[in-house]
């Protein structure tokens, strides 16, 4: 009996200790977002760097004191890296359109991945035990590692320190004020730039500290960055953006569920996490301790979007010309070019579907790969288990992706802005975990192979025409819907929720269906993708795949309809060119960062400003 009690006690404490890394990283993300409004995708990378740097420092310092000094120094070092990123990159793009900073932070992820590979190698590193805390303590007959207690103490200490910092110091007061209204804080004589830099230092340091402190438990590896990101987003969404206490509460909740859930049904943790998130968000859409995001907050309004007009004749002609050129391409191009063109066409459809949701729909999705991959797996599974022909599978893909988007979207449209975006990422990660772990059905990491087109389309040329026409058809369908009453109502919901509700629009239903439509077309892209490759892997649902689409849309420019296409062409081509090189991530990341700094209004935004007038695109009247 006592043993049972001890077992549960130890289980609870284990949960608490694993909450510590989550809490540290999530609170850092929350602080950075609160002050700068940047969702720092690279936050997982900072966490990973913390672990690696601590590993090296512990090797040099040694001893019990040396261990803790190394952990602390690793945190500070990562804090400084965060400051460098802020000063060199982000500071140049704060004025850029909303979310464009995400592209830059994604570039940082790629750069850090390859730098870590260069410095520490591809092997997973086992963390050294903390000197003096190698043993276990006996709690009512069950043993608990001493280091777990240290981690619990650390997170409580950080929680208290952050509370004092924000409630009792001038800097903390300024940060809280800036979280509400940065512009006003500046007008009251506070130098915002240093506040931003300070927030970046603190937030990055917390991430680094989190990575360093978990080293004895989890070691260091190159997948840490993306592995923690989804969990951290869940913690931030459940806890409430900008609330440190909320982040703590949510981290504990999620970790305890993990600790106990594993006892009930092994591998149930994901389902439990999903369920908790759903319950919390239904009753408290802004998280346990969060506050609603004010629509159109002060100081971040961009110039308004011009009304939607039918494409002017010259632009229409240019579009037809482009399509004609694509149809004529096989006459001139070699096989490699055709393969690349197919991939670009598919990615353009994927990006256009995301653009539909996040541009005119106003619903930013960080996890659109859920539907791309969802469609891909739906098609592949149908072929594998039902022996269905390609034609049926290509219809099944968008249908199932649409159903998936209906399920995820039902929760997502209850939220707005960055909460919605983070929730989509969390859902996508759930999807990824399912295909990754459910090996008997999905083949797990090995994927599903041998999914080839029907006889008539198996020829390189035929498949080229099929995918180009299907992608172009999908993009035109998105355009058509955008101009229809349904598309207008969707845009109305983005422009003003209160106005829409007060002229009889059921805002959530409208957004829900629009989200599902967008997901269905992402699924069509996924279906085409499977047949173009002949296989599907969990990668198609992973965070990097979601980010690919996001980068394409943001690179292209959210406010232009051509943006996603321009972005898809640029990014897919770049990736294709560079990925043959060693350390291609480093180069691609650096390139992305360079593009962001050079074209802060997006590639298409830049082109539009230069070439738009010739095509008869009307700018806003003065």
């Amino acid at each position, binding site marked *: 009996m006592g043993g049972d009690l001890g077992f549960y006690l130890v289980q609870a404490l284990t949960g608490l200790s694993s909450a510590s890394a989550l809490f540290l990283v999530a609170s850092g993300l929350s602080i950075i977002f609160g002050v700068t409004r940047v969702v720092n995708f690279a936050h997982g990378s900072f966490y990973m760097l913390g672990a690696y740097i601590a590993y090296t420092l512990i090797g040099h310092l040694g001893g019990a004191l040396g261990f803790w000094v190394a952990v602390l120094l690793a945190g500070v070092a990562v804090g400084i890296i965060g400051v460098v990123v802020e000063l060199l990159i982000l500071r140049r793009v704060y004025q850029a359109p909303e979310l464009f900073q995400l592209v830059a932070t994604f570039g940082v992820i790629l750069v850090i991945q390859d730098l870590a590979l260069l410095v520490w190698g591809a092997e997973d590193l086992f963390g050294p035990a903390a000197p003096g805390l190698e043993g276990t303590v006996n709690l009512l007959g069950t043993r608990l590692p001493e280091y777990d207690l240290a981690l619990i103490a650390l997170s409580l200490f950080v929680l208290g320190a952050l509370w004092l910092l924000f409630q009792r110091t001038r800097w903390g007061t300024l940060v809280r004020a800036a979280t509400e209204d940065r512009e006003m804080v500046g007008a009251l004589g506070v130098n915002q730039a240093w506040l931003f830099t300070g927030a970046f230092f603190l937030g990055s340091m917390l991430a680094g500290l989190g990575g360093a402190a978990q080293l004895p438990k989890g070691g260091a590896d190159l997948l840490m960055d993306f592995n923690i990101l989804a969990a951290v987003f869940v913690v931030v969404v459940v806890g409430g953006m900008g609330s440190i206490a909320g982040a703590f509460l949510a981290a504990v909740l999620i970790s305890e569920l993990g600790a106990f859930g594993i006892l009930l049904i092994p591998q149930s943790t994901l389902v439990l996490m999903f369920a908790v998130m759903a319950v919390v968000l239904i009753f408290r859409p802004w998280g346990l301790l969060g506050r609603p995001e004010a629509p159109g907050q002060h100081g971040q309004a961009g110039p*308004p*979007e*011009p*009304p*939607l007009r*039918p494409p002017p004749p010259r632009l229409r002609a240019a579009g037809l010309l482009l399509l004609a050129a694509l149809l004529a391409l096989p006459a001139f191009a070699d096989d490699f070019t055709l393969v690349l063109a197919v991939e670009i066409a598919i990615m353009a459809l994927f990006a256009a579907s995301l653009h539909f949701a996040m541009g005119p729909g106003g619903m930013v999705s960080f996890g659109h790969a859920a539907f791309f991959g969802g469609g891909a797996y739906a098609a592949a599974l149908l072929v594998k288990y039902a022996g269905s022909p390609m034609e049926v599978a290509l219809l099944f893909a968008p249908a199932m992706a649409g159903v998936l988007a209906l399920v995820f979207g039902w929760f997502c449209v209850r939220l707005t802005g960055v909460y919605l975006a983070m929730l989509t990422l969390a859902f996508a990660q759930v999807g990824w975990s399912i295909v990754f772990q459910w090996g008997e059905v999905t083949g797990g990491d090995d994927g599903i192979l041998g999914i080839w087109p029907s006889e008539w389309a198996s020829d390189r040329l035929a498949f080229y025409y099929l995918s180009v026409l299907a992608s172009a058809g999908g993009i035109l369908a998105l355009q*058509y*819907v955008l*101009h*229809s*009453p*349904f*598309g*207008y*109502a969707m*845009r*109305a919901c983005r*422009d*003003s929720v*209160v*106005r829409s*509700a*007060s*002229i*009889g*629009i*059921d*805002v959530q239903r*409208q957004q829900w*269906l629009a989200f599902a439509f967008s997901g269905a077309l992402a699924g069509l892209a996924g279906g085409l993708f499977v047949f173009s490759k002949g296989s599907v892997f969990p990668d198609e649902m992973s965070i990097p795949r979601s980010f690919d689409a996001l980068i394409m849309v943001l690179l292209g420019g959210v406010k232009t309809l051509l943006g996603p296409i321009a972005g898809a062409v640029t990014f897919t081509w770049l990736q294709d060119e560079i990925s043959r090189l060693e350390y291609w991530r480093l180069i691609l990341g650096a390139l992305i960062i360079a593009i962001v700094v050079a074209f802060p209004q997006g590639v298409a935004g830049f082109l539009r400003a230069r070439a738009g007038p010739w095509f008869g695109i009307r700018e*806003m*009247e003065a």
Partner: protein
Amino acid sequence: MTPANGAGADRGDGRGDGRGAGRGTGRIGGAAAGPELDGRAGPPGEPPRVPLLEVRGLCRAFGGVRAVDDVSFTLDRGRLLALIGPNGAGKTTCFNIINGQLAPDRGSIRFGGRELVGLAPHRIWRLGVGRTFQITATYPSMTVCENVQMALLSHHRRLLSLRGRASAQYRDEALALLERVGMAEQEDRPCSVLAYGDLKRVELAVALANAPSLLLMDEPTAGMSPGERIELMQLTAGIVAERNIAVLFTEHDMDVVFRHADHILVLDRGRLIADGAPEAVRANPRVRAVYLGSEDVALA
């Protein structure tokens, strides 16, 4: 307690000849004159007379603060009722409860005999409650005409339709409404570039799109010049008369209130402290103490 119920009934009945006529779909776009819009209340003369809007014992608290505390009033067709009071007195909260954006803690709102509490804003709108906002809420990425067309598309239940270009649908009806508020000439401009006073007119046209029988106007003239204020209120009064609808509005400009309201309610810290005709409210010492102040601002 009720704002001059008798007078309201008289007015309503006086225009009863137009009732029931023109309930078809063409009623919105028709020539603006004539009391062609009506129908939700019962036929004239039907005993027990039900007011268009009947609010009873409305309460709503935010974190212990009673924003609206036991507010009751009624409103009839053809009347302009002003809701005034200091900032934070609960006026906007009242509005948000009536049009369904907020749920009350207690109380009932009957509209044409039907309970509104518990209904979502979009359902309340379909019953015939239009609304304009304190801070104008229009669609900046659409043209003036498209803003009105959007409301018409919703009215005609075409929100899920994928057929045709939205910008070509119900255009004539939208233009007729814009004509009525004097905005037809600017129909093709984006709403994001309009002058403030013009946006308020667009809002009015949008609010009229489903032929409401009650119009809620939250500070309709805030941010306008004195001349524009008078113009807008005259326009509103004209619409009230010709369509026989009721208007409930909040306002800080006492000029506007005392010149245009038929009846005035005064809120202070969530409670109704006065309820009567303009002259009586102006003379009320309590209203002067908490709201109007020592000077006779209304005459300024």
